[in-house]
């Protein structure tokens, strides 16, 4: 489609250049005797009311449209771009005053402003395109200003400004080249608008003046004879549509290229993928039948296109056990966690030998149908990384909890007493219980607030309440404390610890921070580049790391963090040992 559009544009450009040599007739002369001829061998597209050949005028019109587009775009880019760059660079009061003026002028619709400018300057192709250019310069100025300011900030950071480069040099060498690409994309869209508005103004008699051929002038003469020869309105209109469409498609393609990929999955998080059994299925190792084993995953692999994020990882979580999944960002731990939660979305692809959930009737996630996958998600609670982004900003906390509770009731067939459990009052009580369970004071009030009105720590408690609303047997927490500040981190960890003791579910705790893992986990699984490099009881891994990467992680644990030392006194032996060990490693000075 993009190639085809380029083709159309090249064709229009070629017609504009070669027009004078290839038009079969003089585009501005004709004899009235030939007026309004139908399309035929003489005149392929017929003639207009003065007997002029429509095809010749169409070809000549390509030249007018091209000139119009270039003129208006040049004015918009030079005037708007220049103005925007200067005020973006100078800043201060100049910027504020000029921006007010630009905003004021922008509040006049572009066509209306162009008409006013034409009223002042007079009509004609060049003057009307100057008018259109000025009208679009306002938007261009805003864009250039924004880009320049962003670029300037970056340069301050880089220090170019500090070493005393003059402003002009800064503009020429650093800013202009960097904002050229986004300005170019915008220019394509201005070009498309200019072609349409040229036609419109010429149609009104304010742009290109007859007898010159412009697609707008042609449409205007077609209007005179719309009764006798309606067909005459078709060729110039189609030419306009094709040109503008091609420009828009090319412009959109340029925008997409600038933004990069990200459009490869239009359904976002909506449609989690299923997990296939992969190639190497027929593994003979029998599954562990220990009833205490809650989650059993074997040879989980996650790919994004050709990139392998998780490469054949095994994970086991027992009831009442906290397993920490530790690794740096990009190690594949979040992909693994999301695949175990049944929440992996395209473009990811996932396969595994076995992913089985115990603690009740066993569920198998591999090759499961959507119904089973929904049941799976009903038994696995998930706490996400950034609590404020993971909550719907437009719904109250209570509403979101209610939706989850209702959805779970609808999913579970066990509730025979539907009328009673769906009772709004019963659910309201449950919401209060959940919010109380996660340690929120005044739960009734919190339920009435929206995510934007509560703190990050409160939001994470709400997030945990959402996970608990499903009465999960397994809780998967993906970096639940990363986005929070240290004191709140400690509180959330305390909360998770308490819930673990009280509710006896298994926890898979994903973190990049071995220190946090040490405070909470019984066992740790260390991931590096999609593979498990080490796993075992937390004490053993921390004190005797067998893999150099684990040793590096241990060394990276922040020491003497105020929150950890003061607010959360080492509660477990393992944690104390992590901290001690870290302390020991500190070089004595």
């Amino acid at each position, binding site marked *: 489609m993009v190639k085809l559009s380029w083709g159309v544009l090249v064709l229009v450009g070629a017609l504009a250049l070669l027009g004078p040599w290839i038009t079969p007739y003089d585009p501005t002369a004709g004899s009235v005797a030939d007026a309004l001829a139908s399309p035929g061998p003489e005149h392929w597209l017929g003639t207009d009311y003065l007997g002029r050949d429509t095809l010749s005028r169409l070809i000549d019109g390509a030249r007018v449209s091209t000139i119009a587009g270039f003129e208006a775009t040049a004015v918009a880019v030079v005037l708007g771009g220049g103005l925007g760059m200067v005020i973006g660079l100078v800043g201060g009061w100049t910027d504020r005053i000029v921006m007010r*003026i630009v905003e*004021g*002028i922008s*509040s*006049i*619709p*572009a*066509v*209306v*402003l162009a*008409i*006013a400018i034409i*009223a*002042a*300057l*007079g009509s004609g192709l060049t003057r009307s395109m100057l008018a259109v250019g000025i009208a679009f310069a306002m938007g261009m100025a805003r864009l250039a200003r924004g880009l320049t300011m962003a670029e300037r900030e970056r340069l301050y950071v880089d220090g170019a400004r500090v070493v005393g480069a003059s402003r002009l040099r800064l503009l020429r060498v650093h800013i202009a080249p960097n904002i050229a690409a986004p300005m170019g994309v915008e220019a394509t869209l201005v070009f*498309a608008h200019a072609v349409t508005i040229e*036609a*419109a103004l010429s*149609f*009104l008699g*304010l742009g290109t003046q007859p007898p010159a051929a412009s697609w707008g002038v042609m*449409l205007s003469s077609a*209007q005179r004879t*719309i009764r006798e020869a*309606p067909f005459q*309105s078709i060729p110039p209109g189609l030419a*306009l*549509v094709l040109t*503008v469409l091609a420009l828009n*498609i090319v412009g959109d393609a340029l925008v997409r290229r600038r933004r990069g990929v990200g*459009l490869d999955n*239009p359904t*976002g*998080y*909506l*449609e*989690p993928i299923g997990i296939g059994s992969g190639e190497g299925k027929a593994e003979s190792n029998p599954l562990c039948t220990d009833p205490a084993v809650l989650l059993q995953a074997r040879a989980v692999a996650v790919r994004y296109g050709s990139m392998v994020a998780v490469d054949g990882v095994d994970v086991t979580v027992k009831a009442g056990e906290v397993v920490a999944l530790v690794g740096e960002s990009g190690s594949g731990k979040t992909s693994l966690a999301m695949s175990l939660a049944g*929440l992996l979305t395209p473009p990811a692809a996932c396969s595994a030998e076995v992913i089985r959930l115990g603690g009740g009737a066993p569920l198998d996630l591999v090759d499961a149908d959507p119904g089973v996958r929904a049941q799976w998600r*009903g038994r696995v609670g*998930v706490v*996400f990384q*950034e609590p404020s*982004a*993971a909550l*719907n900003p*437009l*719904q109250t906390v209570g509403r*979101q909890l209610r*939706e*989850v509770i209702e*959805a*779970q009731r*609808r999913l579970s067939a066990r509730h025979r007493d539907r009328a009673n459990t769906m009772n709004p009052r019963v659910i309201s009580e449950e919401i209060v219980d959940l919010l109380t369970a996660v340690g929120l004071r005044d739960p009734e009030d919190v339920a009435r607030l*929206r995510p*934007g009105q509560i703190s990050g720590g409160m939001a994470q408690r709400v*997030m945990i309440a*959402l*996970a608990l609303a*499903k009465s999960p047997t397994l809780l998967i927490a993906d970096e639940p404390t990363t986005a929070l500040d240290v004191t709140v981190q400690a509180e959330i960890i305390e909360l998770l610890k308490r819930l673990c003791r009280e509710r006896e579910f298994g926890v898979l705790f994903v973190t990049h921070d071995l220190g946090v893992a040490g405070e909470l986990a019984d066992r740790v699984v260390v991931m590096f580049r999609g593979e498990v490099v080490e796993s075992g009881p937390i004490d053993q891994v921390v004190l005797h790391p067998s893999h150099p990467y684990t040793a590096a992680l241990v060394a990276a644990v922040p020491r003497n963090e105020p929150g950890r030392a003061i607010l959360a006194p080492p509660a477990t032996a393992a944690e104390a040992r992590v901290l001690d060990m870290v302390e020991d490693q500190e070089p004595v000075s």
Partner: protein
Amino acid sequence: MLTVALSRLAALVPLVVVASFAAFLLLQLTATDPAVVRLGEAATDDAYAAFRHEIGVDRPVLVQYGDWLVNAVQGDFGTSWTNSTPVSESLAARFPVTLSITVGALVVGLAIGIPAGIAAGIRAGRWTDPLLTGSASLGQAIPSFWLALLLVAYLAMTTSWFPATGYVSYERDVGEWLRSITLPSTALGLASAGAFARQTRAGFVRVLHEPYVRTAVAGGLSRGRILWRTALRNASVPVVTTIAGQAAVLVGGAVIVEQVFALPGLGQLVLNAIRNGDMPLVLGFVALMALLMAIIQFLLDLTYALVDPRVRAA
């Protein structure tokens, strides 16, 4: 809510003032002499000077603008140079026509564009998606005045469903009024429908990439519930913003489409004013448009605050 309304209103006043001042300065550039416009080429220099003095164009520009602004606030946009009709009277007589087809076009654009955008958005990635977005792009590329010509040539003239030209005021006959604005509004609104459809779809896709959608999926909410509750409401916020931009495009387009249907709206008025060099009328037209845009922006700001509680709190 009242504070939001008042603060938004206060922010829009300087915009209209700046816009009208810019237009005022711009029209000073004209080479047209009001005395020649009014008295013709043959009058004496004394007569010209007397007329210029009478209408006050011999005073300093700033004084003239200040005078104009003070009167404009009271609804007096000055007097036409060609005849002594007050500008506000001429504008008031034509405005309902332009407003009718602009609002009609907005209704057409929203009525077609939003459902199409939702249809594309909730089935993003399926076969209907490229079909709908492709049609939307095509719709956006079709110039409204050409579509208007086609509707006249191939619908109004071949059937008797809708009139090809003319306007009937709604005070006279609501049914006829609707018939007379249907084709102009359709021609004008179809491109907007394309814009709304693309915006809505893009809004949907953007929302589906928000982490809270994953939370909803994890919570077991059904696909339909997530799309119609979570996604639709969150996606509607940017669409509301688009309406202001589209309103500006539509008002500009209305001036042109009116010509095809020979509607006695502002377009005809301002084109005649330009031909005759009647600057007060042009200025009044530009100021009225800027005011209209400000009012639309104000109404949208209020809608915005209703849809998105975060704005209300700010």
